């Protein structure tokens, strides 16, 4: 039999290698490892639970504990919109949220702005990969759920849009 530690070690080595499939047999015990579709599974960051609109005043949770939570906003959101009517623009990856192309520039969008499918609403950056996020919907920005420079998670809602 193999020890758990040994199997763990083998997985690590195969994972870091270009091998797609690995079989090892010794003393009647056999270990077979196969990479899914030949691709080492990259652990996908967990989708963040989408906070209901009523809780918008609380800062969106970030999975990385070491990033200081943004100061809670003081104003309460106007409870006029029903959550179901609002479209969420979410982040396609983990990274830093930027509301403008550089710190001196005006934000791409503000609350109340009208956006179209291809309007750029923000940038999410990680490791010098810049992703200009498009609205992909026609409507009006109702709420910006994160703050400039904040770390956002994969799937985290960034904007609420009232669709037209």
């Amino acid at each position, binding site marked *: 039999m193999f020890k758990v530690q040994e199997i763990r070690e083998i997985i690590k080595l195969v*994972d*870091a*290698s*270009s091998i*797609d499939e690995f079989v090892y047999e010794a003393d009647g015990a056999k270990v077979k490892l196969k*990479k899914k579709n*030949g*691709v*080492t*599974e*990259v*652990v*996908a*960051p967990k989708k963040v639970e989408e906070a209901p609109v009523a809780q918008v005043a609380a800062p969106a949770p970030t999975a*990385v504990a*070491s990033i*200081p939570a943004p100061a809670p906003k003081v104003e309460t959101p106007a409870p006029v919109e029903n959550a179901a009517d609002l479209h969420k623009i*979410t982040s*396609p*990856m*983990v*990274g*830093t949220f*930027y509301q403008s*192309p*550089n*710190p001196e*520039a005006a934000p791409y969008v503000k609350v109340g702005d009208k956006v179209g499918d291809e309007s750029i609403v923000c940038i999410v*950056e*990680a*490791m*010098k*990969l*810049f*992703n*200009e996020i498009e609205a*992909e919907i026609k409507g009006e920005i109702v709420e910006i759920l994160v703050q*400039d*420079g*904040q*770390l956002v998670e*994969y799937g985290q809602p960034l904007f609420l849009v009232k669709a037209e």
Partner: protein
Amino acid sequence: MHFTMKDEILKRFLNANGEPISGQALADELQVSRTAIWKHLQTLKQEGYEFDTVKKRGYKLVTVPDKVDMGQLQQFLKTKRYGRQVHYFESVESTQLVAHELVREGGPDGTVIIAEHQTAGRGRMMREWESSEGKGIWMTIIIRPEIAPHQAPQFTLVTAVAVVNAMKAMFKNFTPEIKWPNDILVNGKKTTGILTEMVAEADRIQALLIGIGINVNQQMDDFPEPLQSIATSIAIEEGEPIERVHLVANVLDFLEHYSDMYVKNGFGFIKTLWEDSSGTIGKRVKATTLREVVEGEAISITENGVLQIRQANGEVKGIYSADIEIL
């Protein structure tokens, strides 16, 4: 790689570190007549190479041309896709802007945009990037990898690994190192900046636009004064002028190889190669983000390429986006 006689002659001059080579020695070594050598030198002169005649010792290469020869590029490339479609410009605002247009028009995987001069080259946060005429490599590669958008940031480390290994394969007088995530430094000074933009829908990458700026043939006084303490070029570090087309070909060869490897096998192997050339891990660093400054020891990168910094209080912080200063 296919070399013509002219390329063979050029290679010897490029490797001679500015020392003269006699026509007779070249003729003997390449087993051609002195007249043939002379004819090839005339062709090279027409292409912009300049030679001095040194009495009784032969010819000395003094200037390399200020153009990247696209015909030569196709000869040198070993790639299947990268660099097989090239859009060459004397001068553009920025190769990234051209790339965005080509992405919209359906430019294929591996399309390269290269310019001798950029009037509005940009770095992180829209900072100006000095891209002087004919001295560097200013290019964007459009790639269309079959990966999910959340895996795309690792591609910036893949690019760093490709560029650093292309340099190591070509140059012997210096050791390039990667500063997280993907600057290439030599003796602590920047030779290369890489900036990548993604065009994607929520669940699918349309294209990555990998912008690479390499300082190649600048001398120190070509850099604006404020950059002289933080920038360098390959020619300065290697001690001789570099033919840029060879470096472009090498970077594309390595980039296609490592990109395919990442898409097929994941980040594990790339991580090892990144660590092999890292000038960051084990160093004291200062990471400046929009919201805070994190100082401490760079202890590792994670399985996703995130930089881990151990602060004085022992707390380890994961850095996704920051300007890194090696202390």
